[in-house]
Protein backbone atom coordinates (compact mmCIF):
# COMPACT_ATOMS: atom_id res chain seq x y z
CA UNK A 1 0.00 0.00 0.00
CA UNK A 2 1.31 3.41 -0.75
CA UNK A 3 0.43 6.80 -1.88
CA UNK A 4 2.45 9.49 -3.46
CA UNK A 5 2.26 13.00 -2.18
CA UNK A 6 4.14 16.13 -1.37
CA UNK A 7 7.58 16.62 0.04
CA UNK A 8 6.58 15.35 3.45
CA UNK A 9 8.65 12.67 5.16
CA UNK A 10 7.46 9.19 4.20
CA UNK A 11 6.44 6.65 6.84
CA UNK A 12 7.10 2.90 6.57
CA UNK A 13 5.54 0.43 9.01
CA UNK A 14 7.31 -2.92 9.49
CA UNK A 15 5.72 -5.59 11.66
CA UNK A 16 6.11 -9.34 11.96
CA UNK A 17 2.37 -9.46 11.31
CA UNK A 18 0.91 -8.08 8.08
CA UNK A 19 -2.34 -7.49 9.96
CA UNK A 20 -0.61 -5.30 12.54
CA UNK A 21 1.25 -3.40 9.82
CA UNK A 22 -1.91 -2.88 7.78
CA UNK A 23 -3.94 -1.94 10.86
CA UNK A 24 -1.36 0.58 11.99
CA UNK A 25 -1.37 2.07 8.49
CA UNK A 26 -5.18 2.30 8.66
CA UNK A 27 -4.89 4.24 11.90
CA UNK A 28 -2.40 6.65 10.36
CA UNK A 29 -4.62 7.26 7.34
CA UNK A 30 -7.74 7.83 9.39
CA UNK A 31 -6.16 9.95 12.14
CA UNK A 32 -3.60 11.92 10.20
CA UNK A 33 -4.93 11.94 6.64
CA UNK A 34 -3.39 11.59 3.21
CA UNK A 35 -0.72 14.27 3.28
CA UNK A 36 2.01 11.78 4.13
CA UNK A 37 3.51 9.06 1.90
CA UNK A 38 2.83 5.79 3.72
CA UNK A 39 3.62 2.13 3.12
CA UNK A 40 3.57 -1.01 5.23
CA UNK A 41 4.99 -4.49 5.10
CA UNK A 42 4.62 -7.50 7.36
CA UNK A 43 5.15 -11.24 7.36
CA UNK A 44 7.84 -13.45 5.86
CA UNK A 45 7.94 -14.49 2.19
CA UNK A 46 5.83 -17.59 2.94
CA UNK A 47 3.05 -15.50 4.44
CA UNK A 48 3.90 -16.44 8.01
CA UNK A 49 4.91 -14.18 10.85
CA UNK A 50 8.21 -12.46 10.23
CA UNK A 51 9.76 -9.75 8.14
CA UNK A 52 11.70 -9.81 4.90
CA UNK A 53 14.18 -7.40 3.45
CA UNK A 54 12.66 -7.39 -0.04
CA UNK A 55 9.30 -6.35 1.38
CA UNK A 56 10.91 -3.61 3.42
CA UNK A 57 12.79 -2.30 0.38
CA UNK A 58 9.55 -2.21 -1.60
CA UNK A 59 7.84 -0.30 1.18
CA UNK A 60 10.67 2.23 1.38
CA UNK A 61 10.38 2.71 -2.38
CA UNK A 62 6.60 3.11 -2.16
CA UNK A 63 6.82 5.72 0.61
CA UNK A 64 9.85 7.49 -0.83
CA UNK A 65 10.04 11.22 -0.38
CA UNK A 66 12.84 13.68 -1.05
CA UNK A 67 12.46 14.66 2.61
CA UNK A 68 13.33 11.11 3.61
CA UNK A 69 11.61 8.09 5.14
CA UNK A 70 11.06 7.15 8.78
CA UNK A 71 10.64 3.44 9.52
CA UNK A 72 8.64 2.18 12.47
CA UNK A 73 9.30 -1.41 13.54
CA UNK A 74 8.07 -3.85 16.13
CA UNK A 75 10.45 -6.49 17.46
CA UNK A 76 13.96 -7.86 16.83
CA UNK A 77 14.05 -9.01 13.21
CA UNK A 78 11.86 -6.15 12.06
CA UNK A 79 14.56 -3.80 13.28
CA UNK A 80 17.59 -5.76 12.03
CA UNK A 81 15.99 -6.47 8.65
CA UNK A 82 15.04 -2.80 8.33
CA UNK A 83 18.61 -1.78 9.09
CA UNK A 84 19.85 -4.27 6.48
CA UNK A 85 17.36 -2.92 3.95
CA UNK A 86 18.65 0.60 4.59
CA UNK A 87 22.21 -0.64 4.07
CA UNK A 88 21.18 -1.97 0.67
CA UNK A 89 19.84 1.36 -0.55
CA UNK A 90 21.80 3.51 -2.95
CA UNK A 91 24.22 5.70 -1.07
CA UNK A 92 22.39 8.95 -1.75
CA UNK A 93 19.18 7.51 -0.30
CA UNK A 94 20.71 5.73 2.67
CA UNK A 95 21.31 8.92 4.61
CA UNK A 96 17.68 9.90 4.23
CA UNK A 97 16.15 6.81 5.86
CA UNK A 98 16.00 6.29 9.62
CA UNK A 99 14.69 3.51 11.86
CA UNK A 100 12.86 5.03 14.83
CA UNK A 101 13.19 3.74 18.37
CA UNK A 102 9.46 3.97 19.08
CA UNK A 103 6.43 1.69 19.51
CA UNK A 104 5.18 0.73 16.06
CA UNK A 105 1.53 1.82 16.24
CA UNK A 106 1.86 4.94 18.35
CA UNK A 107 5.14 5.86 16.71
CA UNK A 108 3.61 5.61 13.23
CA UNK A 109 0.72 7.92 14.14
CA UNK A 110 2.97 10.46 15.83
CA UNK A 111 5.63 10.34 13.11
CA UNK A 112 2.94 10.88 10.47
CA UNK A 113 1.43 13.74 12.48
CA UNK A 114 4.82 15.41 12.66
CA UNK A 115 5.45 14.77 8.97
CA UNK A 116 2.05 16.15 7.96
CA UNK A 117 3.12 19.53 9.35
CA UNK A 118 6.10 19.56 7.02
CA UNK A 119 8.69 18.73 9.67
CA UNK A 120 12.17 17.45 8.85
CA UNK A 121 13.17 13.79 9.07
CA UNK A 122 15.09 14.51 12.28
CA UNK A 123 12.04 16.17 13.84
CA UNK A 124 9.78 13.29 12.78
CA UNK A 125 12.15 10.75 14.38
CA UNK A 126 12.51 12.84 17.53
CA UNK A 127 8.76 13.20 17.93
CA UNK A 128 8.10 9.45 17.50
CA UNK A 129 10.82 8.68 20.01
CA UNK A 130 9.25 10.94 22.62
CA UNK A 131 7.23 7.90 23.64
CA UNK A 132 10.31 6.43 25.27
CA UNK A 133 11.60 9.75 26.57
Amino acid at each position, binding site marked *: MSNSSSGNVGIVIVSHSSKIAEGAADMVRQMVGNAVPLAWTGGDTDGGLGTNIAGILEAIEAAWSSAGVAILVDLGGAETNSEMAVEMLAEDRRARVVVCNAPVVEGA*VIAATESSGGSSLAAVKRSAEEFYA
Partner: protein
Amino acid sequence: MHDVNASRASNAFVPLMASAVLVNAVGLHARPSVKLTQCAKRFVAKIELALASDGPWTDAKSPVKVMRVKAPQGATLHFRVTGPDGTAALAAVLALVHDGFGEA
Protein backbone atom coordinates in the same frame (compact mmCIF):
# COMPACT_ATOMS: atom_id res chain seq x y z
CA MET B 1 12.87 22.53 15.98
CA HIS B 2 10.40 25.30 16.88
CA ASP B 3 11.81 25.66 20.40
CA VAL B 4 14.84 27.88 19.99
CA ASN B 5 13.58 30.15 17.24
CA ALA B 6 10.07 30.40 18.61
CA SER B 7 11.19 31.38 22.09
CA ARG B 8 13.66 33.86 20.73
CA ALA B 9 11.04 35.36 18.43
CA SER B 10 8.38 35.32 21.10
CA ASN B 11 10.32 37.45 23.57
CA ALA B 12 8.88 40.58 22.03
CA PHE B 13 5.28 39.37 22.23
CA VAL B 14 2.85 39.44 25.12
CA PRO B 15 1.27 36.01 25.71
CA LEU B 16 -2.36 35.78 24.66
CA MET B 17 -4.58 33.70 26.94
CA ALA B 18 -7.99 32.15 26.39
CA SER B 19 -9.89 29.05 27.41
CA ALA B 20 -12.54 26.75 25.97
CA VAL B 21 -14.51 23.79 27.27
CA LEU B 22 -13.96 20.42 25.63
CA VAL B 23 -17.34 19.49 24.19
CA ASN B 24 -16.59 16.35 22.20
CA ALA B 25 -17.61 13.12 23.92
CA VAL B 26 -14.22 11.53 24.24
CA GLY B 27 -12.21 14.56 25.35
CA LEU B 28 -8.69 15.15 24.13
CA HIS B 29 -7.97 11.55 23.11
CA ALA B 30 -5.75 10.45 20.24
CA ARG B 31 -7.58 11.79 17.22
CA PRO B 32 -8.35 15.27 18.60
CA SER B 33 -4.76 15.49 19.84
CA VAL B 34 -3.52 14.86 16.33
CA LYS B 35 -5.87 17.50 14.91
CA LEU B 36 -4.86 20.02 17.55
CA THR B 37 -1.14 19.55 16.97
CA GLN B 38 -1.59 19.67 13.19
CA CYS B 39 -3.45 22.95 13.61
CA ALA B 40 -0.87 24.36 16.04
CA LYS B 41 2.03 23.50 13.73
CA ARG B 42 0.64 25.80 11.05
CA PHE B 43 1.65 28.78 13.17
CA VAL B 44 4.99 30.26 14.14
CA ALA B 45 3.73 31.24 17.58
CA LYS B 46 4.50 29.18 20.64
CA ILE B 47 1.22 27.52 21.60
CA GLU B 48 0.72 25.89 24.98
CA LEU B 49 -2.24 24.34 26.72
CA ALA B 50 -3.11 23.47 30.30
CA LEU B 51 -6.02 22.22 32.38
CA ALA B 52 -5.62 25.15 34.79
CA SER B 53 -5.01 28.82 34.12
CA ASP B 54 -1.71 28.69 35.97
CA GLY B 55 -0.42 25.58 34.17
CA PRO B 56 1.47 23.29 34.04
CA TRP B 57 1.78 24.17 30.35
CA THR B 58 2.12 21.62 27.57
CA ASP B 59 3.52 22.28 24.10
CA ALA B 60 0.47 22.09 21.82
CA LYS B 61 2.71 21.21 18.86
CA SER B 62 3.78 17.90 20.44
CA PRO B 63 1.22 15.16 19.81
CA VAL B 64 2.79 12.90 22.45
CA LYS B 65 2.66 15.59 25.12
CA VAL B 66 -0.88 16.66 24.21
CA MET B 67 -2.14 13.08 24.49
CA ARG B 68 -0.48 12.75 27.91
CA VAL B 69 -2.66 15.60 29.21
CA LYS B 70 -5.64 13.18 28.93
CA ALA B 71 -8.14 16.01 29.15
CA PRO B 72 -11.69 14.59 29.54
CA GLN B 73 -14.97 15.92 28.14
CA GLY B 74 -16.09 18.94 30.12
CA ALA B 75 -12.55 19.97 31.01
CA THR B 76 -11.58 23.56 30.40
CA LEU B 77 -8.59 23.88 28.11
CA HIS B 78 -6.49 26.96 28.71
CA PHE B 79 -4.31 28.24 25.91
CA ARG B 80 -1.28 30.49 26.11
CA VAL B 81 -0.06 31.73 22.75
CA THR B 82 3.04 33.82 22.13
CA GLY B 83 4.30 35.01 18.78
CA PRO B 84 3.77 37.17 15.71
CA ASP B 85 0.75 35.20 14.46
CA GLY B 86 -0.56 34.59 17.98
CA THR B 87 -4.00 36.11 17.41
CA ALA B 88 -4.74 33.90 14.42
CA ALA B 89 -3.25 30.87 16.17
CA LEU B 90 -5.40 31.37 19.25
CA ALA B 91 -8.52 31.80 17.13
CA ALA B 92 -7.73 28.63 15.20
CA VAL B 93 -7.19 26.36 18.22
CA LEU B 94 -10.23 27.79 20.01
CA ALA B 95 -12.39 27.19 16.94
CA LEU B 96 -11.18 23.59 16.83
CA VAL B 97 -12.12 22.99 20.47
CA HIS B 98 -15.49 24.77 20.13
CA ASP B 99 -16.20 22.64 17.08
CA GLY B 100 -15.48 19.45 19.04
CA PHE B 101 -12.64 18.69 16.62
CA GLY B 102 -15.24 17.91 14.00
CA GLU B 103 -16.56 15.04 16.10
CA ALA B 104 -19.93 14.61 17.74
